[in-house]
């Protein structure tokens, strides 16, 4: 019996936040406004209203209410809507790490890949971004055009995880 459930989460506003200048000052402004720091590479942080996942050196995936961000960025960065291109998939249960090894190249079974960590990787030829919510839940951000195929892939793979 496999212990992983694959659930498609409702569509949500997603943005790419890029900072091109004065990163220290922007980070300070952001922390003051949001109450948490811009997450480092491979990390995510946030709260119920706003969550950021850093997936490139100067780019964060932003989930939630971004109304305050343009003013905060000023001329040091930009915010671009990308929500239409991404499907959020929740992988829940103890087996999510094993599931992510199927067709993968990333060490999702590492104990270091823990709550608050994020990664950008390839799974079965598809670029997927991962965010560990807690020991039992991981969120995957899948390109819309591949989402049907990926969800089918995961559901099929989940049946044979323990074989």
């Amino acid at each position, binding site marked *: 019996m496999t212990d992983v459930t694959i659930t498609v989460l409702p569509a949500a506003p997603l943005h790419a936040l890029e900072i091109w200048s004065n990163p220290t000052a922007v980070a300070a402004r952001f922390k003051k406004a949001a109450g948490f720091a811009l997450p480092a590479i491979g990390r995510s942080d946030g709260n119920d209203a706003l969550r950021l996942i850093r997936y490139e050196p100067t780019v964060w995936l932003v989930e939630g209410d971004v109304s305050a961000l343009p003013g905060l960025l000023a001329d040091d960065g930009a915010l671009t809507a990308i929500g239409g291109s991404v499907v959020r998939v929740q992988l829940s249960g103890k087996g999510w790490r094993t599931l992510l090894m199927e067709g993968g190249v990333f*060490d999702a079974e590492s104990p270091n890949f823990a709550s608050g960590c994020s990664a950008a990787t390839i799974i079965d030829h598809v670029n997927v971004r991962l965010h560990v919510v807690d020991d039992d839940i991981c969120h995957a951000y899948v390109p819309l055009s591949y989402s049907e195929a990926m969800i089918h892939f995961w559901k099929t793979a989940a049946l044979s995880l323990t074989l």
Partner: protein
Amino acid sequence: MINFSFDGKTYQAEKGDTLAAALLRNGIGLVGRSFKYHRPRGIMTAGVEEPNALVTIGDGGRTEPNTRATDVFVYEGLVAKSQNRWPNLSFDIGSVFGLAAPVLSAGFYYKTFFGSAKRWMIYEYFIRKAAGLGNAPTKTDPDHFSQRAAFCDVLVVGAGPAGLSAALEAAEAGKRAILVEQDNILCASLIRDGQDRDGAWVESTQARIRAAGGRILTRTTASGYWEHDLVTLTQRIAEPGQIPLHGVAQRLWHVRAGQVILATGSIERPMAFAHNDRPGVMLSQAVRTYVRRFGVVPGKRVVIATNNDDAYKTAYALKAAGAEVVAILDARPAPAGADSGLPVYNNAVPLSTNGARHCLKSVTARINGLTQSWNADLIAVSGGFTPVVHLHMQAGGTLDWNDAAQAFVPAASRQNVTTIGGAANPDPVFNVVPVSKPKKSFIDFQNDVTLSDVDLAWAEGYRSVEHLKRYTTLGMATDQGKLSNMAALGRLAEKQGVAIPEAGLTTFRPPYTPVTMGLLAGAGAKDAGAHVRRLALYDVHAAKNPIWQPLGYWFRPRAYPAGNETLAQAAMREAKAVRSNVGMTDVSTLAKFEVSGPDAAAFLEIICATTVGKLAVGRGRYTFMLREDGFVFDDGTVWRLDENRYLLTSSTGGADRMATHISYVRQYLCPHLRVSAVNVQEHYAGIAVAGPQAKAALAALIGEEPPRHMSTVPAMISGVPVIVLAASYSGERAFEIYVEASHAGPVWAACEAEVTKQGGALYGLEAMEFLRIEKGHLVVGGEVDGRMTPHDLALDKMLNKAGGYVGASGLSRPALSEAGRRQLVGLEAIEGNIPEGAMLITGEGASPQGHVSAAAFRILDGGSIALGQLTDGFARHGEELIATSPTRGQMARVRVVAPHFYDTAGERYRD
């Protein structure tokens, strides 16, 4: 008991039997026919090195040919068939080739089948009928194959006592450990060697490894060792031919290991003597395995031939099982130790075997120079041990020669790999030089290579071991010479008069054992290897039952046939709707990039070869992009959405390449610019509305005056925010509507309703192709094929005169604007229809001067037209040529014209 069948007859096996054990249990010694001479063959080994007992397992799509009977565990209903025989295994017409063996020696094909290629086509038919192994299945494999990654600190290959201990040590030291074993149990050698009293130790050690977080994989073979300590493992989840639980038959593991420990043991070597391939000739350790692990005694009167101590264990095992050991032929000159109570003959080597009805009847040996024979139904041979160094060598490791063991052992490696156990320290043996007649002394059983073949290759001048291997095919069968390589090297060294290590060594390459092709393809085995990208509006299109067409990684509607329309009829109807009324199509797959920031225009003027900076807010323009060598690689449009925000579109097929190019420019050429370039290809779904009534349709949809050509406005359709771009690919007044993909459904529905109301139609890629060819618009991958400059495509007037764009320097090279280059032209048919892809020639027999890149028919007026590339084409308008496609037997007379067949002044864009 478990029921299985062999060649249509049902037998019973015990639980845990390999097919080989089960066949022996049922008294079946003849299992197959050899590759070349169709000689009767039996079971020689008990492991993956088996060269003889190759069978076909399973039925239908699950058929797996050339499966080693020693490497498949019997399950209820297993179906096995012998192969390479006709009409049956016992009476095989093909065995006549054995009579012709004297003329079928090494190099036979090279010496015989020469002449014209046509004659080879005749030879080949008969050769393929006569020689071979099993037949590949003709039905689709119904099962699936999984691929999984794993990371560990220590990977231990081989779960004998040494490997099991190493895995335990690693796991209990807190390391992430993986232990793999190709057998279905661990430490099978302990059972073989009568040490099964240690079974409790094996059980408890397994439990401790698992408790410490280690992973143990059985029925898993480490098949390849690659760079950076990447090891591929082949795991059998179901046995060959077996219906797998949940459909997954095998799993390919990609393991990245911090350290690899090879505890791969050794493979026992056969001995070379006449008729050493007969059923009833087995390796000593294999005999012991069948006796002790499977409880099967393969013979009643047994001769043992050896050059080492290990074979004596086999003698004891046989004796204990009730068999009679009639002779132990020990090649060593003196007794090995204390009197064993067995009939031991020293300085004794086997000379030949005799048989009848495919069974062994007697063994003849030379003992101290004299010949002696024994009636026997089994000879167990042990010619020493070859360490399994395949993975070590695949890892780039070198080998040392161990003279005592007469074997190569692992030496240094440039990767983090260590070899332990029997593979590192093989037992000492006595070197035996074959004394039998070489013609029937087989060394490569699977490819029917004898000592005389090696001798012949030597006599014909083949000195290098690599040449000898290829000339004789030694070591090139599916077993990759696991049993044969050392015997061949020994013979070659003997001929050269040198020691074996000086004779050379061939290279071990992955895979260690054969790997099913489907496993390499993985989950995509039935789906061209990768997923197909799905349009956001896929379900909407699918409901209309279109003809789909692959485009890049996507599937897009090619046409929407009505009733019994053909593709051509549907596409022409759709194109006419666009020319005369209005049509709409899905353009979501176009590449799209949102470029923001104070330096966005400057950034785009590096990406694009046209000017961007002077573009007013709300305006757009056609653009194209160059590689650094000055050749055009993509085109599209650029739109100024806001003061510091632009939308860049480019081709579908080039989308990934464009994303890479933008990233390259951003990260390497312009890291200093204040700009963000985000790929929004999938964020926006796109709908194109084109035709004389497009403006009216759009006005109804957005409730305001639509933007003029090459202008853009934000708007609302069905309460959903959209961006409207007034751009045309069809040659008609047209608009592209971009909407966030997750909200595309209602917008498409509203557009379709309005287009239908206007009397228009949906159109697909085929109609779009007709329209753009007639208009003379380029397509990336067609006219833009990586070899054309802006000059060649008549785009040079649009180049940014200030330069500074990627490719500007490359483009300045004089050769790129000299005469004699291929240039874009239009082609009109004078006679016949122009074949797409045809060569352009001036007359029969002349050299091609260009080709047709795209062909179509005039949509409203009829007549065949095309776009093409022609040497000095701009200056040849009016010239008549021949467009010929010899491969399709098609030809047309054409006239060279300008590449615009419709509305050359562009008046239809304007209101």
